[in-house]
């Protein structure tokens, strides 16, 4: 049972109040109609399953109904940070930072 800090309610709440809403930072293609089937398939179906740091979306379903992002260690279940929609994570895995070119 996680204990999750809601960045909108600004305090920790029990996991029962939240729903997990999948991987974060998947942008909807700007022009879906001109995506190839493969690009659209990647957007729709392909998700990371990292051992370690993962960025995911949660929604405070039984609370303020706001979506937010969370960086979580999938091994230890430690929540490293939560941040609002539109914000970027402060904590990223080495692999991700290389991929982003910010390493």
């Amino acid at each position: 049972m996680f204990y999750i800090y809601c960045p909108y309610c600004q305090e920790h709440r029990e996991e029962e109040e939240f729903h997990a809403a999948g991987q974060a930072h998947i942008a909807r293609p700007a022009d879906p109609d001109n995506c190839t089937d493969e690009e659209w398939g990647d957007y729709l179906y392909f998700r990371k399953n990292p051992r370690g740091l993962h960025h995911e979306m949660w929604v405070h379903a039984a609370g303020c109904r706001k979506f937010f992002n969370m960086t979580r260690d999938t091994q230890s279940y430690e929540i490293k940070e939560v941040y609002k929609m539109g914000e970027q994570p402060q904590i990223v895995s080495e692999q991700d930072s290389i991929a982003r070119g910010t390493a």
Partner: protein
Amino acid sequence: MSDVTNVEASSPVQAGEQAAKPQVAVMNLLAGEGPRADSPLAHAELGAIAKQSDAKGGVCLQELKLLGHLVLRGDPNNQSFVAGVTKVLGVALPAALKTEVIGELSVHWVSPDEWLLIMPAKQAFQLERELRAELTGHYAIVNVSGGQTVLRLTGPDVDKVLCKSTPYDVHERNFPVGKVVTSVFAKSQAVISRSGEEAWDLVVRRSFADYLWLWLQDASAEYGLQIKG
């Protein structure tokens, strides 16, 4: 899902720009004297139970029925919205997890862009009109007076009943008088506010009211439950 990719587009109303009045259908949802209104717990006949109910008991339950409930949505960073609401209500909108009480009106924070206003039923339409007259730009008001009800719990053992019902920490160090949270309550949800040391209000949805009434009777049984009509 996704990132916000074009945040710059979501700028609030620019100063000096003439914000439009939203075009909405406003309706007085209160009938005249003729039609009978039934609260969500009308079928439980709490008034009749109250007459037979033991005056002792660690928990006292009362349905504050048929009040006016308005949901107010708006951006707290929008100065014009905040000023307009403050002007009409006479107080500023409460910040996160706070309740403001002004006479018969209570204003509960629900979400960063949502407040619940509870007042006598007859004032709801008037207040909605006053707010709409004052406010411009992007906001919303929804009258949900028929969709929810208030259960007031008082007594020395209420905190224990709450501990059985919600995973939220109701200890006075975490939940002082004047605080409000929306949380899980049994297998439903409630807006829980503390109005006194031993006084709590639950705002619950109409369709779940009977379930929560059963739940509260059960959870209170060991302390003794008194019903107030």
